[in-house]
């Protein structure tokens, strides 16, 4: 069991199930939009340390599959 030194909030633990479900839908539709846009060549590649949540190249590729 993880020990805990502050209250994580019970509501917050429950809420995450809903938040994650909504996020899943959002990401799915974003992914579809991305594919549509890249089909028409409308995607710009940005170069920034914060362009992706994944810090390793292989993670990025793994997620795209």
């Amino acid at each position: 069991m993880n020990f805990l030194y502050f209250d994580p909030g019970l509501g917050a633990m429950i809420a995450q199930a809903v938040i994650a479900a909504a996020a899943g839908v959002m990401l799915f539709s974003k992914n579809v939009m991305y594919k549509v846009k890249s089909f028409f060549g409308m995607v710009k590649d940005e170069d920034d340390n914060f362009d992706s949540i994944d810090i390793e190249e292989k993670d990025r590729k793994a997620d795209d599959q």
Partner: protein
Amino acid sequence: MTNRERHEASFRDPSGYIIQDGDVLRRVINPIYFDQYNALKEKGVFEALQKKGLLIDHEEESASDSEIIITPSPIPFITNPYEWCFEQYKHAALLTLQIQKYALSKGFVLKDASAYNVTFHKGKPVFIDTLSFDFYEEGTPWRAFKQFIMHFFGPLVLAKYHGTEVLKMMQTHIDGIPLQLISSMLPAKTRFSSTLYTNIHLLAKLESKHSDDYKAETKIAKLSRKAQSNMLENLFGYIRKLNISEATEWGDYYDKTNYESESFQAKKSLISSWVKPLNPQRLIDVGGNDGTFARTVLNDVPHVIVTDIDSNAVEQNYRRAREQDENNMLTFVSDVLQPSPGIGFNNTERNSLIDRLVAYAPDVTMALALIHHITLSGNVPFDKSAGFFAKFSKYLVIEFPKREDSWVESLLVRKREFINHFDFYNEVEFEKGYSGYFSIEKKEQIKGTNRILYLMVRK
């Protein structure tokens, strides 16, 4: 043996604590955290994050049955969340999510997501709490999620709707902005955004509904690893796209002023010719706007801080420093007339700006086009502002705009019938006030202006 003086900000986490060993900060790890520490080390999590520059480097000094001591790389100056511009705040939030997602992929989690885990170093945000990781238990939600919303997501979204001043609320709320308050401050239309509705409004509602479940009777929902990743990724995408549009107080200051470009150059070359021979290791430009003048000496000084009251100027400076890879430039927001106080337990958890400046001990302090604001907008007498600078500065490069200067004129005109109360604003009184703390080494009128530049040294 190490001389152990426990750091005032280090008591919340039982996993370990920070000690001040002479000039060096070290981190002591308690046996309760040995399993986590060793696993993180063996699985290469520390190494991977440090290699990417996301986590502060550390050296293991010693390891015994009762404690492990590590020494993190020193950071010359710690900035706090309420001193960051919007872009800095955003990057600190994104960094936290990147680390959480990476940790999750390796079987760990961030057990807390406090904004104080991040500070700025070498031009980038860096995670400084090496003991914030814990083992991930399959199927559990992220325990630090609520803290992430209160420390990062909430303040950022509030800043979008109310401007960057809102970020200063972190100064009065060391544990983050309460969820109910975030929810109530957001416009009604945010309820129609699925990200904002679920991450803030719904969260606030569920939190207040379950706040008196003292016996922890309600069953905690399971959350798969993939679902948690989705949640993190969606937050990351949303924060990355967050923007604010604010008119700047000084952002285009240099376009607005009546500076001739010739005198602008004259001021620049005067500054660099005075500062370079002093060979400073640390320099701070107080009221330094977007860092234009600090940049004249940036290549000659190993560590340069530029601070300004205007969040947008700080933001421009931050972006520029990142674009040009100026790793020795640190920028943050501060108001000379009300510097950040010491906050938290005992008023010592987060040091006041003055305490941090005294510890930083810059060799050179620059105060350009600032004294008329301190004196005429803040009504601070000359000897008081001199005392302020003398607290932390050895050399002081200070610009005094005379009464004939257009900015001073406009500040004086605004005093209306009280204009006579400010007759003391002149060269003679200025030098008299500062002579209590400093002696004047050099003095020169900037060509084509009504401004005098002084080089002073503390008595």
